[in-house]
Structures are given as C-alpha cells and as structure tokens.
C-alpha cells in the first residue's frame, strides 16, 4: 500500500498526488514513469513521474481526469492509499551539457517536462521553456518552470495569459533567431508533439517526444504500447517512453489511443452508479 501524503487540485480536472514511495524515489530519473492501481478491480494506470524527492522518499504524480480510471483516481484523498505502485519504468531522459535546450510542455504535459528542464538546467544548459494551455485557468507549473528556465514563454489558445498562440509559434521564432538550439524536448497532447516535430524537422534540430500509448504491464510483456518509430515497432514501456520525434508515426499512435473509447463510457457509468449505490450487479 502506498500512502497519499498530499493531494492538490492544480486546475479544473488536474490533480496532483504526492505519494510515499521511497524505493521509487531513490531510483527515479527525469523521463521515467510509474504504473499504479487503485484497488482490486483497478486498471494499471501509467503516469509520468512529475517530480521525486530522494530525501523525503516521495514521488509526485499529476493527472487530468479524462477517463473512467483517472476520474476515480481524482476521488482519492490525502491519507488514503494506492493498492499498487511500481517503478521507475522506462528509460530516463539523456541529460548532458549540450548548450541551449528548448523544453516545450503542453497542458498536463508541462508536469513531466519540469524534471527534464530542471535536469537540463542543473547540467549547465541554457534552458528556454515554452509552456502552453487552452486558457490561464488550466495552466500549471508556471512558477516551477520559471525557476528552472533561463527564459519562459507562455502561450494560451484564448490569449488569457501570455501570447495567444500555439506553442509552435514561439518555437519557430526561436528556431529562426540566432540562438543555437541543440535540442528540443516536447511533452503534451500527441497532436502538439506531432506539430512540434514538424516545426523542427526542416531545421534538423533533434527533437525528443514522450509517448503515452495504452499500456498494461509496463515491463515489455504485452506489446500493447507498441509505437511505430522509423517504420519499426518499439515498445514505449521499455524502449521509450522518449523517442526521436522526427521518426514517430503520430497518426498510428493517435489511432491506437482511441481503441477503448467506447468502453470508457461504460466503465464511467458503472463506477458512478456504484458510488451512488444504485448498482444492481449483485457482485460488488
């Protein structure tokens, strides 16, 4: 059992959990993820590690209540427990001093970009961060990102904060400027990562994206998380989750992410009915 030491609401539908997990905190590196299970009937939910603290033995997870399971996760409170938590999984971000690095985070993806930006900054790189959201209400981690970036650019779709633009706009301007950008790291909605990769492609700037396909075990056993990278199937759980954005087939990824959309509603309805005590299945 893994205790929730802190729960915070960061934005509508975006929640943060700080969890007691000393063995994971001891080993976690930027770019890695964990898999959790809330209870006996729970799904295995993969979440990128948003932060870790080796001294306190805690890890921080951020999630958006989008599906049935993440909505249920959002109902857990400080002091409650997760049944299962395993990690750290996946390969860590390769961090070294290379010069100027642009870290792009979109929506909830800003959270996993944060430890990477921090790592890049600690390694002595110049870090320029671009973070974007639909509007200012759902923009997270602004201060944290500012603290580890030499320059922070904010964009919102509706212009309620920062520039009214998509993250690719300021990115393109940076690429056109006289800055010598050595690497772009982008985490966010698949469509955003796809367009970031398209933006940097003509410039030939290495671009790392972090993929979040549907996953079961997270250790390479099921192959459900296979993604097409450079026309070769890779398992995001063990070969990734980070890949060369210029080689990823984002369309296949988006299609595969839709596989269980129909089932989501059924499970949400079931969970809601169960919570309200109207379930008639006689088995729960």
């Amino acid at each position, binding site marked *: 059992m893994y205790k929730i030491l802190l729960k915070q609401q960061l934005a509508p539908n975006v929640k943060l959990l700080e969890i007691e997990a000393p*063995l*994971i905190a001891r*080993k976690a590196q930027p770019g890695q993820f964990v898999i959790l*299970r809330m209870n006996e*009937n*729970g*799904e*295995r939910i993969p979440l990128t590690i948003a932060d870790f603290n080796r001294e306190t033995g805690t890890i921080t997870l951020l999630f958006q209540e989008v599906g*049935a*399971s993440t909505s*249920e996760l959002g109902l857990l409170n400080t002091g409650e427990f997760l*049944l*299962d*938590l*395993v*990690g*750290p*999984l996946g390969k860590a971000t390769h961090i070294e001093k290379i010069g100027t690095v642009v870290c792009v985070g979109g929506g909830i993806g800003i959270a996993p970009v944060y430890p990477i930006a921090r790592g890049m900054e600690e390694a002595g790189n110049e870090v320029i961060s671009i973070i974007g959201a639909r509007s200012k209400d759902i923009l997270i981690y602004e201060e944290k990102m500012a603290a580890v970036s030499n320059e922070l650019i904010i964009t919102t779709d509706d212009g309620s904060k920062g520039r009214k633009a998509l993250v690719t706009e300021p990115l393109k301007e940076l690429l056109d400027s006289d800055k010598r950008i050595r690497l772009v790291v982008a985490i966010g909605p698949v469509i955003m990562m796809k367009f970031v990769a398209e933006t940097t492609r003509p410039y030939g700037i290495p671009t790392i994206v972090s993929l979040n396909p549907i996953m*079961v*075990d997270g*250790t*390479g*056993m*099921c*192959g*459900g998380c*296979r993604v*097409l990278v450079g026309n070769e*199937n890779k398992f995001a759980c*063990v070969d990734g989750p980070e890949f060369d954005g210029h080689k990823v087939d984002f369309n*296949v990824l988006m*299609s*595969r992410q*839709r*596989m*269980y959309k129909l*089932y989501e509603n*059924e*499970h949400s*309805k*079931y*969970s809601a009915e169960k919570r309200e005590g109207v379930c008639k*299945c006689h*088995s*729960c």
Partner: protein
Amino acid sequence: MSLLLTKHPMPEQEVTARVENFDEVTLGYTLELAKAEAERCLQCKTAPCRKGCPVEVDIPAFIKKVKAGDLDSAIAKIKEVNSLPAVCGRVCPQEEQCEKYCVLAKKGEAVGIGRLERYAADTARNKGEAITAIECSAAAQKVAIIGSGPAGLTVAGDLAKKGYKVTVFEALHLPGGVLMYGIPEFRLPKDEVVQAEINNLRKLGVEIIVNAVIGSTFTVDELMEKEGFDAVFIGTGAGLPHFMEIPGENLNGVYSANEFLTRCNLMKAYRFPQSATPIHVGKRVAVVGGGNVAMDGARTALRLGAEQVSIVYRRSEKELPARLEEVHHAKEEGIEFQLLTAPTAVLGNVDGWVIGLQCVRMELGEPDASGRRRPVEAPNSEFVLDVDTVIIAIGQGPNPLVQSTTKGLKTNKKGNIIADIDNGATSKPGVFAGGDIVTGAATVILAMGAGKKAAAAIDTYLQGKKECSL
C-alpha cells in the same frame, strides 16, 4: 483381475455451458474415481514413470496412498519435491512425461497420474492443510529470486525447506507469472488454485515482494552488494511477445496473445465493467499460431462472446505444438482450424480497425531443421479471412531488463541467459538462472525442473560459501 485399458474419464462441464463462463472446464475426480484410477497402477518396482517427471515425484508411492484413501500421506509424498501440485496436475503435459513411460501405455492408456496428483492436491487444499513455517536462523543465508513464475516458486519452496531466507521479487502486482497472466482461469483457477499454492509457500516462510522490477527498482548487483543476498536466481520467463512483421499489425483489434490473455486473466477483463480493464473482442476472431497459448487465446475469445474463432496455423494438424487435450477441447467448443494457412497482412478500415486477415495457403515441403516438414506457399492461393480481431500467438522471447542491467551476465544471440543445464549456474558467480529465460518458451514443469536443479546447486554453492567464511 482384468486390466482396464482406459483412464477413468474426469468429469467436465458440458460444452454448451462452459463456453459461456470462465469456470474451470474439468471438474476433477471424486474419491471413488480417484481410488478406481489408482487401482490401475501396477506399482512397478522400476517406476519408469518417474524418469519422465522433471521433478521426479515418487509417483507409485503417492498413488499407493491414494488407493488406500490416505490422502494426507499422498500429498505429503508429492510435496517432498513439488511445491505446486495442484498447478502441475492441471497444466503439465503428462502424456509426454510421466504417463508416456507408464507400462500401461504400451497396451492402452497410461494411469491418469496428472488427474490423481490434482485430486490429492485439491483434497488437501479443500480440507485446509496445515503448513508449518520452517524456522530460519538469524544467520541463515539470503537468496533472492527474480520472477515468481513456476521456476522461481520451485526454487523458493525448495530453498525455504532447507532453511534459507528466501525473498521472491515480482514485477507485476500479483505473484505467479505465467500462471497468473497467461494460462486462463478455465484451465487454472487463479484465486482458488494458484494463489492458494503460493500462499502455502508464504506460510512456509517465503517472502514475496510484488511491484518490484529487478533491473530498475533494484539491480541484481545491488541485491548482492547492498541488500545482503548471498545468491540470486533469475527466472524471468519468456515475456517479450513476437509479432509477425507483416503490414497492419498496429491496427486496433490486433493483440499479442500476451496482452489479450493478460487483460483477461491477470486484469480480469472478463468481468468488465466491474473490473476496470477493458478488452475488445469482435465478432470474428483469428488466432495466429498452433501452440497452447494459441488454444488459450481462442477459447478465451469464445468465452468473451466472439461468434466465430479460428486458429490460423501454417503447418498441418499433425505438427500443432499444442497438447492434444487442448486441441480436443478447442474443437469440442467449436474453434475452427485454418491449417496450412499463413497470414500475409492485416487489413484495416479508414478508422484504423481490423476488417480482415489476408492469408495464403501452404503446402508441406522438405523437413526443416526442427525435423518437421517446412511449409511452403501454394501458388495463387491468396484469400482474406473475414475477421475483426487478430490475436498473435507465435511465441515470446526473453525480456532483456535483468540481463541488460547486470554486470558480467552472459546471454546468447537470442538474448536468453546462458546457464548450465544441469545446475543453472550463469557466468556470474552466485547468480543462477532457469526456466524460459534460459531455454526459450517451454512448459511449466520444465521450468520447475530447472528450478529444482538450480535450488540444489544454490544449496551446494551456499554451503561452500559458508565454509569459506568460517
């Protein structure tokens, strides 16, 4: 007394009923049936059956006890060497092992050794067997076991009985490995049989730590250098699914058998939405492959509501690697067999979902390296199977996580750990390995046999180590 030439049949669920549920298909002997079957055993002095058993259960001795109705002694006899008898009684390919060597098999059917083992184990469990923890002294040497499948559990049981302090590390949230994620509930009940036998090991004193990925949470070197383990056994199995490398394998509706079975068995997707993990089964399902895993996938798909399920296999029926009993059950349940058929592409619609499996017919040519006749494509035989789900069950390779993070551990070209077949010793001192991670995908009992040899070798190694340090 005339000898009965056939085994006493084991009661089973009716076909029409069982394809609608996930309950166990075979129901096990009654006391009367068990005694009657035990009567058939000739109690051969030479016990040829034993040489067919990878863990060398004293078969005539336990059968004699069953015959006498002394089931406590029967199970005690089996458990001297086998920690998982209820599992083995169900999933061992006895026809190729103990029963193959039974004298009766020369004239008729062998004694139903597997069925009797299962009966003895089930009876003991249902009665609530008393298991005494083996005390291990404070000075007991520590053994880490990586992977809680059949190989690891066997090593754990054997070494705990010898007084070692044994800790098993499992990456998933429940122990059992392939017994939990791979073999379906209707062949091997999870709570009632697998977890019960594992709980017996816990009662014996074995510690099991789940959610621990070795290679990440801990490395093998850390276990030995920092966590104080004197020896390590690696039994991480064959956990990396192979795909066919044909077009369309990333369409929605294409599963590896590992994923399909894991969703259903470990995650209990057959209880969706009560269980939160979904599984998608269309109306028509093709399962590619001819082994036990393919049969499991096909029969699972049927129970999840598929209207038509076909096995697609590139050789003929004679070469099917699955156990006869599994093929028999599959046919009985209405699984169709597209033999001498090889897939060439998965076809999809614009939304990215499977709409068919393009195949070619095969003919058998000259024998290949495996001694089986090599299938060759029949000219102009291309056709499309009308399916909306494809399950790929063409085998698994070794998961590289442990090997790639352990210094000095040698692997072969396929990525399997190189270990001595007689004792499991690897290239790294104090590290032993066995089961599918060494041999490639095989059977539960072969993994247990490897575990047994490794346990004996680890015991010898640790005795030697102790003497050195005195």
